[in-house]
């Protein structure tokens, strides 16, 4: 049974704020990644920070640069939940 709590959207938004410098209030589920000027390497950097924090390796090749922050969050959630199952 996993003792690690499920990652929250807020935690991911905070990682984006700290890593990319985008203010928290500009990061909403529907926000397109391209609209907050994340380049492809920055997305990978965010995913690498998230995997250290949440303890699961995130397949960066599945990150959709044309997607939204919610999409990124759902990827993180899926990976973390399946690794802790």
């Amino acid at each position, binding site marked *: 049974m996993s003792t690690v709590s499920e990652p929250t959207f807020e935690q991911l938004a905070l990682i984006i704020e700290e890593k990319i410098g985008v203010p928290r209030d500009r990061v909403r589920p529907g926000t397109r990644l391209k609209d907050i000027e994340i380049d492809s390497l920055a997305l*990978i*950097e965010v*995913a*690498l920070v998230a995997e250290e924090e949440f303890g699961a390796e995130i397949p*960066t*090749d599945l990150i959709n640069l044309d997607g939204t922050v919610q999409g990124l969050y759902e990827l993180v959630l899926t990976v973390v939940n399946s690794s802790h199952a």
Partner: protein
Amino acid sequence: MRTPPPDAAGSPAAVICGIGAWLPPRIVTNDELATRLDTSDEWIRSRTGIRARRFASSREPTSYLAAEAGRRAMTSAGVSDVDMVVLATTTPDRPCPATAPRVADRLGLAGCPAFDISAVCTGFLYALAAASGLIAAGTSEHILVVGAETFSAILNPQDRSTGVVFGDGAAAVVLRPGDRQEPGAVGRIELGSDGSLADLITIRAGGSEERLSGSAAAPSDSYFSMRGQEVFPHAVRRMTEAARKALAQVGWQADEVDRLVGHQANLRILQAIGERMHIPAERLVVHLDQVGNTAAASIPLALAHAQATGELFPGARVVLAAFGGGATWGAAAMTWPALKMP
């Protein structure tokens, strides 16, 4: 943790006793590349941290760069002779024979055994590991370990992604037998590979898999190619994992590390590793801004650079880490010795 072999206590360690470097004189700035590739200085700097790199001329094959660096390393070590040359390179003078004998020949080392190590950007660490074993076994006493590259010779002129990243150069160290507690002792090196990632960093054609004769390979197959975005996360994870193992091996905490000398592929990779390991940014040795990614030469060039600037000082606790084609990776922890540079 593996225990050392029973006779390890009696075997000499390999100790770094000299260092030297050589860069081709031709400097290629980002602005120059922007005149023929669809890019800009700002894009290159923000994505990689690189400002300029060196390109060798056609009269400067890898053996030339390696010999220049080797000569300087031998002067630094105060030796006129070595009894083994180990060359880490991705860009040999020719696919056959190895380039190391040519380097020994250029250095006037008649009859000196010499061989190449092929592990792309991890090559120098693999070479140090091999050389350490030769010294421990008593096969050799003074070994010249060189990392040298002329990547400009294999880059696809139409590939912006590799064209702005890679550069040429060479650096070398001299190893001598010594005590494993001495500053400069190389110690055990953490190494690894994953052959399933061969396509990430490769030259496809010209070997037994995609032969030069017979069915025509795509022209781009003869050039170097790298899938940088896929490499990035692998590099951060493997370099961090290997560096952590190296630290555990010597019993250091991250805050005891004076310098992290990572393979100089991309500034953002180095920063991501520093953050994962909680090593402050000011302790990362950065050289890629001046020379780009020099593959197997990258770590020894960064060491030589840091030695010259004083970032590396006698007694400094240093961690080396690399990730490269193969895929391969490695890390080592050591205390830096007092060295003279010519």
